């Protein structure tokens, strides 16, 4: 009698635990959205991947179509080789353009695919040739400052020259 009551409570306890784990996996985690089903793999060489990480989303028109499988460094070309798994349902032309974008101002980085116009589509193991790497903030700022400096130099040269005369 006593034992069956304990059995019942332990059963409820274990069921609650399983429900909590399932709830964590389904509702809190991304078990459902992370599964892409069948994928095909393409690679792309970037001059700079910035903060791109494995498992980062690959988006086209803002929709997640795949994920970054891994990122390697090619010591011959000094470029980063990014392997991408794309969902089998989505076909992209061979001349698709791959960019590395940042979500928001400081958000995570993702690969954006812009479809080209060719008839043949990318197959497993293909390489995306047209790429643009991540924008490095320091480079952009230094370019901006350089431009500003050269601008003000060319503007102020005649101005400083006249009062001295």
């Amino acid at each position, binding site marked *: 009698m006593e*034992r069956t009551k*304990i*059995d019942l*409570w*332990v059963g*409820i*306890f*274990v069921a*609650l*635990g399983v*429900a*909590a*784990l399932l*709830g*964590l*996996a389904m*509702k*809190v*985690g*991304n*078990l*459902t*959205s*992370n599964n892409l089903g069948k994928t095909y793999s393409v690679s792309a060489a970037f001059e700079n991947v910035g903060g791109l*990480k494995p*498992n980062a989303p690959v988006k086209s028109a803002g929709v997640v179509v795949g994920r970054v499988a891994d990122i390697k460094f090619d010591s011959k070309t000094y470029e980063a080789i990014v392997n991408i798994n794309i969902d089998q349902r989505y076909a992209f032309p061979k001349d698709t353009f791959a960019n590395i974008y940042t979500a928001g101002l400081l958000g995570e980085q993702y690969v954006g695919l812009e479809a080209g116009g060719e008839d043949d589509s990318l197959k497993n193991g293909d390489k995306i040739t047209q790429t643009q790497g991540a924008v490095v903030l320091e480079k952009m700022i230094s370019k901006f400052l350089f431009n500003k400096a050269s601008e003000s130099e060319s503007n102020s040269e005649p101005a400083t020259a006249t009062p001295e005369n």
Partner: protein
Amino acid sequence: MIKSNLLNSITRLLIGVGHRMIARVWRLGAGARLFFLTIIYSGESFRRFHLTLREIYFTGVMSLLIIIVSAFFVGMVLALQGYNTLQKYGSSEAIGVLVALSLVRELGPVVTALLFAGRAGTAITAEIGLMKTTEQLSAMEMMAVNPIARVVAPRFWAGVISMPILAALFSMVGVLGGYLVAVPLIGVDSGAFWSQMQANVDVRADIVNGVIKSVVFAVACTMIALFEGFDAPPTAEGVSHATTRTVVISSLTVLGLDFVLTSFMMVV
């Protein structure tokens, strides 16, 4: 004269420290031996599973209330405090991520282990300590019943089974508590709350790692409680000291292990 006095007191200090260190190492070895004996003799706790079931009832089911209530409050406080800071950066939708990640990765396993040490660990130590004081363990040995197989192992496995369940419940209830504060009370969008959470919480890197942590903490906490009870001097004072040590050592071990495990899991 003064010099030799100073030298004397330093020597005595060093001897004291050395004795304490040796005693600690001795206890560590005894604890490890008990751990291996528990593993070796744990067959009976599965063959006669009702023994373990009874202990799961006492350590797990009876801890449900404290775990659920504290998880609820922890989740609510996390949401309130997180909102305070996130709102300054205009990203109050990320509150779901903040609550879920801190619960699943850290607070779920750690706070559950601390509460478990206080709620169930002390009970285990006191029970076994008293069994030893009243010579029940010796009586078992006289009857050719192995007290490790009959008393220690079922409690060990009950703790190891209960704690991950409790930790998962803690995380889930905490997230619900955070939801309750963030969405109806503060007015964060419900869709953004869940979708941002799902986009940033990884099943393998976050949830499974949390479960691994709670299993490790379960082994540590239960084993410390069992050993302290088994090793307690058979007096009222001895049992009370052992119970105190259970809480102190379990808490410190959990926090230390948490750092070690986190640093292992952070490797990309």
